[in-house]
């Protein structure tokens, strides 16, 4: 049974990942534990004395957890669709090497994206399991949260792939993280509700995929009301992913077929 050409480039990426999977899993596990201890349990005790961001009387830790789950998915998606893509085109040139096989640029794009989504899914599942251990959510909420987080990461991955595949070196990538990913992480309703933001910039948060991801995550994990219907947020994330792919795929072709 032959693997379709569009998926044949997944296996080598998994094989490369296998070399470092232990370290990767440990850090994927420690990251939520440390964040939840410091921000949720530590900082949270102060917050809980003075405010109730959920408006539902749940702890800051519980409110923060699903938000962080979505934010972590964004960061994983962004990380996996930036430096490794640069390496494929330029540093290790693995994409260029693969172009000499029956695979083509579209196959490389699809396989790369599939692997990114698998990675986001994996990181999100570990995160969600930690949330269950902290008593933030039930197992069902964790499973659904893993799915919405994966969708969030997937929505970030294609536009960032499009961005990265235009770059000649990685200075653009440090700008992307400094001026894109980090501000989104801080101001998309993960740590405090966007109702705290000045009225003028609030629509900006509605336009970012992360805020929708955070909303969905809290909805499935905590049963919180969403600002927009859930399907609208899901649709919005899907649109980001599709539009990103529409830009990224021709860019892959242009770069690999010369």
């Amino acid at each position, binding site marked *: 049974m032959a693997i379709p050409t569009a998926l044949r480039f997944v*296996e*080598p990426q998994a094989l*490369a990942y296998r070399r470092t999977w232990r370290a990767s899993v440990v850090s994927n596990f420690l990251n939520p534990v440390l964040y939840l201890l410091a921000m949720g349990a530590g900082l949270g005790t102060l917050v809980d004395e003075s405010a109730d961001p959920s408006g539902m009387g749940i702890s800051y830790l519980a409110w923060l957890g699903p938000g962080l789950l979505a934010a972590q998915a964004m960061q994983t998606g962004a990380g996996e669709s930036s430096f490794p893509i640069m390496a494929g085109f330029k540093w290790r040139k693995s994409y260029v*090497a693969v172009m000499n096989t029956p695979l083509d640029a579209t196959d490389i794009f699809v396989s790369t994206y599939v692997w990114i989504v698998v990675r986001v899914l994996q990181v999100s599942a570990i995160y969600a399991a930690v949330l269950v251990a902290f008593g933030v959510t039930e197992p069902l909420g964790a499973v659904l949260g893993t799915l919405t987080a994966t969708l969030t990461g997937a929505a970030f991955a294609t536009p960032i792939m499009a961005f990265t595949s235009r770059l000649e070196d990685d200075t653009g990538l440090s700008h992307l993280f400094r001026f894109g990913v980090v501000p989104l992480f801080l101001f998309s309703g993960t740590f405090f509700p966007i109702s705290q933001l000045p009225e003028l910039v609030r629509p900006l948060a509605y336009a970012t995929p992360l805020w929708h991801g955070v909303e969905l995550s809290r909805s499935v994990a905590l049963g919180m009301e969403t600002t927009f219907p859930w399907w609208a947020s899901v649709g919005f994330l899907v649109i980001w992913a599709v539009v990103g792919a529409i830009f990224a795929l021709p860019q892959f072709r242009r770069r690999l077929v010369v």
Partner: protein
Amino acid sequence: MGEPLVEARNLTKRFGTFTAVDSVDFTIERGEVFGFLGPNGAGKSSTMRMIGATSPITEGQLKVFGLDPNADGREIRARLGVVPQEDMLDEELTVTDNLTIYGRYFSLPRSVIKPRVDELLEFAQLTEKRDAKVEALSGGMKRRLTIARALISNPELVILDEPTTGLDPQARHVLWDRLYRLKQRGATLIITTHYMDEAEQLCDRLVVMDGGRIAAEGSPAELIDRHATPEVLEVRLDVDDHAGREADFAGIGSRTEVLADRILLYVEHADEALQEVRAKGIIPAATVKRRAGLEDVFLHLTGRTLVD
């Protein structure tokens, strides 16, 4: 004429307004070793990448296995083995993993790949290194691994873009031996090189490329016969610049070439020519008598030396 595997007519590649390959014609037949000899920037790699169906042709016709690379690239690549100019190996994976992964791109089942990897490791003399990471290999080993990788799918046609550039003489000879064995097994090889001796040793037929064009075509012996004399006498004089000194040698041999540091006399017999030089009262600082080679063909065709 044997069965043509690659046929190019007016094959042209442009990058923007720059013409890298300028309307070249050639036919490569099954079972032969066909060479592209030329200096840096001649258009060798651009031609290889068009044959390899990774670079779309700009103009002209190209058929590989009778197929059109622009339309049937996937099918052509499935039947090719390509050794690119840059190795582009997976440095962090082992030698065996590199071969296995590459086999998977060709949809080979693991049961087929496994024995073939063992065989290719033997062929490339890398059996001891099978579990080493690629980053720990020497340049020559990496090159041999790149060649082994290209052979994992048992290709009918193997394209080797400068297989030995950057290797020491011993490593080059090991590679030549491997390539010769490949030919013995019936593979068709296309080789680019800027080493004259490599082209002379390996190629049944070759084209000399320069500035995107083909300057001459034939077997090494034919080309030498057509564009040079049997022997060459190289004369070094005790002067800083040899320019303008060729007049001193008028009447000796059929042709002279002046390089910065020596004068080349194209002659039937180098011994006799040296006597004629002495008879003219010229006292060379040094002389070399040798048989003519592809270097001389290239010099004659382009007026330049092809430095390694």
